[in-house]
């Protein structure tokens, strides 16, 4: 059920949209659509270079896999301290290491952990510094040399790299 307040809000929103859309030449449907973050060329170049240095592979070789879970905040108020964790739902014997990359940092390769069978489960948590809003990438290197990962865009309000 709509109450009076919501009804008025909806009304004004629709009116503004309909009247402004032809002037601004914006398609009406796209007004409500969420804006998807764009990977910019500079960040992609940096991550590509870093991946070549670490694995000798490019970003296209990293398969996005639902078994790998990256948890990072959508909006981080303080770029000095962004808690990030990666978890891979593979048997730990099949995983060599878990890596964390941030595209826009001066050095994208932040931190990684080398696992052993005594690790029990592939999990790694670390707080990181972020210079600016960027993609955070959690990548797992499997024993057969293939790369699987999960990517997430994190918005940073105050950067933390100096």
């Amino acid at each position: 059920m709509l109450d009076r307040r919501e009804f008025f809000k909806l009304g004004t929103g629709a009116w503004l949209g309909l009247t402004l859309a032809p002037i601004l030449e914006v398609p009406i449907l796209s007004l409500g659509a969420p804006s998807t973050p764009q990977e910019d060329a500079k960040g992609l170049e940096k991550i590509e270079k870093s991946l070549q240095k670490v694995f000798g592979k490019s970003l296209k070789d990293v398969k996005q896999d639902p078994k790998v879970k990256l948890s990072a905040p959508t909006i981080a108020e303080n770029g000095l301290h962004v808690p990030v964790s990666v978890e891979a739902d593979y048997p730990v014997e099949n995983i060599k290491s878990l890596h964390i990359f941030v595209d826009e940092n001066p050095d994208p390769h932040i931190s990684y952990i080398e696992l052993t069978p005594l690790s029990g489960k592939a999990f790694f948590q670390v707080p990181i510094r972020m210079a600016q809003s960027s993609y955070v990438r959690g990548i797992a290197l499997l024993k057969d040399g293939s790369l699987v990962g999960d990517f997430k865009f994190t918005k940073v309000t105050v950067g933390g790299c100096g």
Partner: protein
Amino acid sequence: MSVPVIVRVIPNKPKKGDVAKLMFLVKHPMDPGTIKDPKTGKLIPANYITTIDISLNGKKIATIYNGPGVSSNPIFGLDFKAEEAGTVKMVFTDNHGKSFEHDFNLELS
């Protein structure tokens, strides 16, 4: 050189053979070498922990490698298999090659 380290095992006394969580806080500035000192305006030289070796009774659990992008006073978290009671030893090495150790007793329920 000694650096305070606070360790927590979750659950506190894991059952034998179970996977437990090991979390530890390292009190360290982790200066990346790109931040300026607000008082003098000069860059603070890089000083951060690069590797952390973690072992249980001499058997390696995992090794963590850090770049300059890790926060100050970081809390690390990882999983491990509590196969036996004993001492968990952590060896920290910084970018100057200095190292320090911290160990604690792991008890099983």
